[in-house]
């Protein structure tokens, strides 16, 4: 059952001015409940614009976007979306402003009309979810934490509101491997335990191979491929001229195949890549004997 559906979604910034830019061009996709949907694309491909439509921050210039069946062009629908759709921008630590971590998380919760004790519970729960120790960080000013910890706090702010759809723009960009792991674990856990739908834009295609159920590939505002991972990677190899976005082991497979080696380029994981190369090397060893 699709929770998010777009039909021929087009978005034009500054329409009618000399600075007009078509950020999205007839994008049609649907995301089902409980899915982890990955979005891949270079800078300028329209990824960030696309996800802002999912919580009503932006409305389409043409086409429609439906969340839980309701059209986001509708004002009353948009006013309710922020509770259900948690959106985390790139480098969210730039948006932290409260004087303590507790206040930071409590801000959104107060706006939802929750009581004091409920707020405390949720704050503690959310901090644990992202891998932070509530006792250590609750009274600390967010601006005083390390980069990775601030990212975790920003994610906790969203998780505390218990959204049913989580939309994340590059959640692990620029953070160290340890914080990155905590964040991805929290996301996966939320998807599993609360059947949340997760939409994730990421450059770290390696992570998406494990986490995502479906993928979408955007280039210059157009949706060039969408669906299961293997299909999308196959399509990406065609469009991705410099072969830059694909993860290393897939790049390797394509390079080897281009050279004439009999490897299967439709693999996904590193282990499969190892198996392919292993097979080829055994073949060589056999031929030599």
């Amino acid at each position, binding site marked *: 059952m699709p929770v998010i559906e777009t039909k021929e979604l087009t978005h034009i910034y500054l329409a009618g001015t000399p600075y007009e830019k078509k950020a999205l061009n007839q994008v049609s996709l649907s995301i089902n409940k409980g899915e982890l949907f990955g979005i891949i694309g270079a800078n300028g491909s329209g990824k960030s614009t696309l996800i802002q439509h999912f919580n009503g921050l932006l409305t389409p210039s043409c086409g429609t976007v439906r969340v839980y069946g309701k059209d986001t062009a509708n004002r009353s629908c948009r006013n309710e979306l922020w509770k259900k759709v948690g959106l985390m921008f790139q480098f969210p630590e730039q948006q932290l402003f409260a004087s303590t971590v507790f206040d930071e998380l409590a801000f959104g919760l107060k706006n939802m009309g929750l009581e004091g004790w409920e707020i405390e519970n949720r704050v503690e729960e959310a901090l644990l979810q992202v891998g932070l120790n509530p006792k250590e960080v609750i009274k600390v000013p967010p601006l005083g934490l390390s980069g990775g910890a601030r990212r975790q706090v920003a994610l906790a702010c969203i998780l505390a509101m218990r959204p049913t759809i989580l939309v994340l723009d590059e959640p692990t960009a*620029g*953070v160290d491997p340890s*914080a990155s792991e905590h964040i991805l674990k929290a996301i996966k856990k939320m998807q599993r335990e609360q059947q949340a739908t997760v939409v994730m834009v990421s450059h770290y295609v390696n992570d998406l191979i494990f986490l995502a159920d479906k993928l979408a590939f955007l280039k210059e505002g157009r949706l060039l491929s969408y669906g299961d991972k293997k299909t999308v990677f196959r399509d990406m190899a065609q469009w991705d001229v410099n072969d830059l976005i694909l993860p290393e082991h897939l790049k390797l497979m394509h390079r*080897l195949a281009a050279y004439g080696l009999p490897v299967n380029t439709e693999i996904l994981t*590193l282990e499969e890549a190892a198996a392919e190369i292993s097979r080829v090397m*055994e073949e060589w060893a056999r031929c030599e004997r």
Partner: protein
Amino acid sequence: MDGRIELIDATKEYKHAGSPPVSALNCVNLSIRQDEFVGMVGLNASGKTTLARLLNGLILPSRGKVLVNGLDTADLAQKKEIRRLVGMVFQNPDNQIINPIVEEEVAFAAENLNLSPAEVRRRVDWALEVSGLADLRHHAPQMLSGGQKQRLAVAAVLVMQPSYLVLDEPTSMLDEDGRYELIKTLQDLNRHQRLSIIMISHRMEEVAPAERIIVLHQGTVYLDGPPAEVFRSPRFALAGLKPPPIARLTNSLLRQGHPIDDRIVTLEQMVEFLCR
């Protein structure tokens, strides 16, 4: 010239009111030659950034010494020379660029060195050339892509003709294209201009082509050696890090008994090996 940067028992402590001093770096002994390409990795709070800042005298060690080509960073009289020898590029290009025109941005450091106008012009042209920005010299930095901005930051430092270039997570805010351009530029600089590159990164694939990798963990040098060795060492995982995909591939194939070169850690190396 056989120069090197040496850290001798370098320790850096930060004092906070009311609590015991926090040790960011603990008794580090390190030596980096003038033409090495070094990758520096480690978790946050491992001391990487502190160490990077010690290398050009931006901060001074609480104990121990840092010597750049024999000059002590604690010696104020040598500050100018050290700053010239060790260039630094930071994570966020927007916080490093001051001028509204690319050419002027590059000229800034050369002007500060009080060189003759002809020399300034010569160096600016050279720096723009080796960073691949010659066509963009009259553009506004704000209009450049992330990768171009970082290359501009590199050019702005190159104009001082340093012997060492330290980059603190230069690629974290860049997309694939930008990252690829920047790293290629750095490799060219190392190979053709004989510049020592010291690059801090979170992404193991980026440091895999380096000739040497230094792993920092909790303020000390945990591992130091050629990439293949470092990635294979059990201490690597203890430092909280995972080897890059190709290195893992190599290890997996080695375990299965295949005759693969155990030094392979990058895509290029693997392709070269398998396609010969």
